[in-house]
């Protein structure tokens, strides 16, 4: 464990900036503070590279000998002592980064910074009041998100998980579209139901561990053999402990991912949320579900993961196919992108469900790839919405002609989402499909893996179908009279799109150098726990 303060700064810098936002006089300063704070957080988070860049070093030196053995920038402070005495169980402020959280922390800071830039024109939004409040909540949201990815104590994880809800509710509810109230409360209630189920698991993990070993540390819960044995043997209200806890956790995380049938909040929230918030929702919040599965469910309850693998794989398939079919049926541009998110997150679930190292790698790659492509797509939608004030796909046409630069970037972004080779989406989906197809090599009993891979592959065709069709309707074709005068994407808009495009290319061309080598070590360690 290597101690350090970097993560503390990352988590609380936005909070400090949020407080500053409340006291500074002018709206312009508020915006400036928000952009500077998110930018500074991004720069700081780049500092994490020092630990994970391992050209020349062996993977073992970077990732340690086992799961959670090598953590970076760790801060471990006792927050709440339960009981008395030196050995009393503690709730700790325990943050740290490993190969699993590192890419997500970076993704969070990048997407949040770009989303903050995307909020720069808030004065021109339909609802342009309360700029101070907007950026204040925005920054608090960043604290919550970074806190979730950095926490290694279950209790702390839960706190940050919930802290994130409040800003999100207001950001959708106050600055959203026409059905914002409905969308905001739906998001809030769905997520809260998930998180209270997590609360039960939190308590059960604590009390079902043998007395004396009780802990909230996610690392300890996964690594301690005595705790693991206790979990395997226990029953909870007559049910087997591990499967029940797995299901409760899964519902909590599945709501976030979102997994069919818990997905219905997502299209509503996405459509009603303002563009930058949609970017954050799709780019980061959805990833928390997958992260939770990889950080909590699977390492701590590996046997239950096996027990549930078929069901989870099946749900992943449903997500892929159902999401794609729904996307195909949409006429609202933003809704289409929202359903495409559901479809893409299905690959993540499938990759995790097969529980092989390659599956986890593919799933995590897909997580990051989708974290880059989907905010980009949402911003692309936002750009034309700002100009056209509607999102009806069928009413567009020939936009490429009036906005050539924007059109090129848009095509790149949607192709990245489609999974065109050479762009980020391809690697993730391909990796998951290959891993699923060959899963039987690791788990001989996974007879369903091959058929699942074949069915999942058809999802790629459907994806290509709805994206190409959409591109044709929106960007290609004859130029329409009403869109002739559309101004080209502004410098700010290009500045937001360009990094996304660059990252999509980078991950697509150099997947190993840009992502796999930063996280594979940690993912393989998690896969080790399943043995």
């Amino acid at each position: 464990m290597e101690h350090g303060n970097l993560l503390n700064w990352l988590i609380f810098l936005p909070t400090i900036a949020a407080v500053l936002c409340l006291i500074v006089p002018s709206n312009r300063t508020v915006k400036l503070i928000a952009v500077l704070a998110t930018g500074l957080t991004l720069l700081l988070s780049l500092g994490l590279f020092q630990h994970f860049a391992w050209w020349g070093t062996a993977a073992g030196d970077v990732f340690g000998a086992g799961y959670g053995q090598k953590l970076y920038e760790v801060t471990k402070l006792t927050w709440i002592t339960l009981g008395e005495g030196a050995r009393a169980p503690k709730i700790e402020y325990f943050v740290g980064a490993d190969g699993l959280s590192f890419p997500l922390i970076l993704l969070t800071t990048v997407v949040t910074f770009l989303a903050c830039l995307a909020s720069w024109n808030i004065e021109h939004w339909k609802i342009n009041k309360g700029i101070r409040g907007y950026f204040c909540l925005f920054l608090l949201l960043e604290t919550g998100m970074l806190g979730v990815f950095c926490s290694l104590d279950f209790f702390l994880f839960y706190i940050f998980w919930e802290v994130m809800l409040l800003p999100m509710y207001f950001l959708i509810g106050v600055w959203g579209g026409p059905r914002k109230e409905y969308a905001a409360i739906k998001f809030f209630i769905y997520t809260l139901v998930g998180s209270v189920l997590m609360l039960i698991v939190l308590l059960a993990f604590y009390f079902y561990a043998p007395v004396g070993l009780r802990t909230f540390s996610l690392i300890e819960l996964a690594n301690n053999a005595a705790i693991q044995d206790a979990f395997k043997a226990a029953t909870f209200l007559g049910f087997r402990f591990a499967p029940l806890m797995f299901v409760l956790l899964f519902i909590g995380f599945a709501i976030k991912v979102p997994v069919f049938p818990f997905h219905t909040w997502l299209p509503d929230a996405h459509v009603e949320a303002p563009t930058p918030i949609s970017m954050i929702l799709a780019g980061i919040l959805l990833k928390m579900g997958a992260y939770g599965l990889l950080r909590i469910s699977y390492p701590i309850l590996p046997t239950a993961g096996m027990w549930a693998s078929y069901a989870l794989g099946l749900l992943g398939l449903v997500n892929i196919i159902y999401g794609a079919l729904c996307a195909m049926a949409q006429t609202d541009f933003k809704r289409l992108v929202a359903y495409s998110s559901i479809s893409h997150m299905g690959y993540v679930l499938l990759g995790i469900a097969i529980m092989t190292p390659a599956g986890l790698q593919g799933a995590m790659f897909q997580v990051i790839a989708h974290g880059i492509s989907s905010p980009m797509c949402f911003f692309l939608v936002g750009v034309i919405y700002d100009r056209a004030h509607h999102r009806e796909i069928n009413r567009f046409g020939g936009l490429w002609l009036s906005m050539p630069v924007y059109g090129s970037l848009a095509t790149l972004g949607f192709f990245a989402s489609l999974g065109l080779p050479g762009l980020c989406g391809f690697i993730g989906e391909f990796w998951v499909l290959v891993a699923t197809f060959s899963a039987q090599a690791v788990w001989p009993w996974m007879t369903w893996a091959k058929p699942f891979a074949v069915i999942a592959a058809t999802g790629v065709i459907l994806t290509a179908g709805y994206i190409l069709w959409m591109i044709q309707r929106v960007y290609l074709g004859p130029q329409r009279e009403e869109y002739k005068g559309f101004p080209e994407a502004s410098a700010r808009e290009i500045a937001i799109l360009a990094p996304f495009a660059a990252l999509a290319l980078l991950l697509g061309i150099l997947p190993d150098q840009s992502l796999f080598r930063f996280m594979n070590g940690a993912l393989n360690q998690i896969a080790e726990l399943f043995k």
Partner: protein
Amino acid sequence: MNPASLNNWLPSADELHLFSPELILVGTIVAVLVAPLLVGRRPAVPALIAVLGCFVGLVATWAVSTQIADGPQAGMVPPAAGATPMLLADRFSVFYKLLLFLALGLITWLWLIGAQKRNGTNSASERGATEFFVLLLTSALGMMLMVSSFNLLVLIIAIETASLPSYALVASDKRSRLGAEAALKYVMFGATASAIMIYGVSLLYGRFGTLDLSVIASTLDARYAELRSTVATSAPVTHVAVTDAVFWLGLAALGVGITFKIAAVPMHYWCPDVFQGAPIEVTTWLSVASKAAGVGLLLRIVSVFTVTGPWPPPNLPPAAAGHTYAMTVAVLVGVLAAVTCTVGNLAALRQENVKRILAYSSIAHAGYMMMAAAIIVAPSAAGGASAATYNTGMAAVIAYLFVYLLMNVGAFGATALVVWQTGTDHLSTFTGLGRRAPWVALPLAVCLFSLVGLPPLGGFTAKWYLLLALGKTAATQPWLWILVVVAVINTAISLYYYVRIIRQMYLTDDAALPAFRPPGGGVALVSACAIILLLLGTLWFGPLGRRAQALASDIYARPPAAQAELSHRM
């Protein structure tokens, strides 16, 4: 009667000192009554005396807490063989006295703001200042006594002392039709509940020949042991239940009175109507103090029936443990708790009146607190052999009540500021409050989110300690996990109606509604509540738990004398 035995009836100075907070309260009541004769009927005078009384009372309570540092003490023992104390002083009762004095202070503050606000428009409430404070302080006195006795007679007197002034308080705004209706409902319900309770007490007295609950509990213990020894000599015990109809009937009737006080199902019907009709200061008082005292009483009663030591009792086969009266009481309380919070939350979903929403919310919170009373293994070591033992359930409730006081005073206080301004308590009056009065809306939002139990606010801290207490005891009584599940699912349900108010404040707006300037004192009150709630959820998270555990240790459970007494009485 010779003088010597007469002397014994007079409490000693030490005993009087133990109960100095109550005596100071009595003194304050007299002072409030006498003051108008000396200085005329000025509204500020009774308030000032009340605040002064609260302050002196707090100091006296602190003095008592040092006096009982070595262990709980009991007082007012009549000079008869086998007599038990009439009043007790332990850390739990000290906590209650502090809480009630604090609540009194906050209510007085709120009343002063209200008096200012109503100045000129409704002078009736000002003329009633003396009456208001006499009634308020008297009900506080009753509540303090409720948690400081095991004697059923004292309990009945205490409950009546707390209730009767409350009925009048509800009707203290003489022009309000709703207030009169509410008071009538309250009286009718209250009188019925009292009658049933007194009937139950008479049954218990008839059955056990004593008014002391701890003696009743010990008697049952012994009876149970006797039953067990007769059955268990030959065959293994699997089913030994205490089937004592008179006892159960008496206990159930007593339960009616208590559930009425805390507005728990099935005696909760009065609550929304009374809360809606009463002046808002009174509503706040009832929702906080009256409920707190009721929960305290319930815990007191349950705590004498709980089992000391490990569970199941070492000399008892686990199968038989499930049939002990302690277990039965716990399960009954647990079921009532689960039903109460579910009913409260579900009923709140469709309310349109903010006071009614908060009334149902307080029913739900009563349910959460009652869950702690279902924890029947009383003492629980904090860790390590040398560490102090404390009553897990009581610690959870102490933390919960403190937070609940702040949340409710904050929420009702902010509501009061809006209601006094706009003259209505319908949900729609909160429209656009985030713009119209941001410094009322923000603390109110914090208090409401805290009532939901979202981190990082005090409401979550309280709920967390409650769930932790349940989970801890669930190691031996797995059925408590059901209560955990019920509690967390209710949290999710309750989100909807709290957020309705927040939605009205922030997500809707009507440009026609003007902004207004709330009184500074009121903003200070609700902001203070909100800030403390925020601190309780973060920096004071651990300290709150530790304080609660300290206050829940050294609880006066059963007098050793009473147990010794038993062995030859059986």
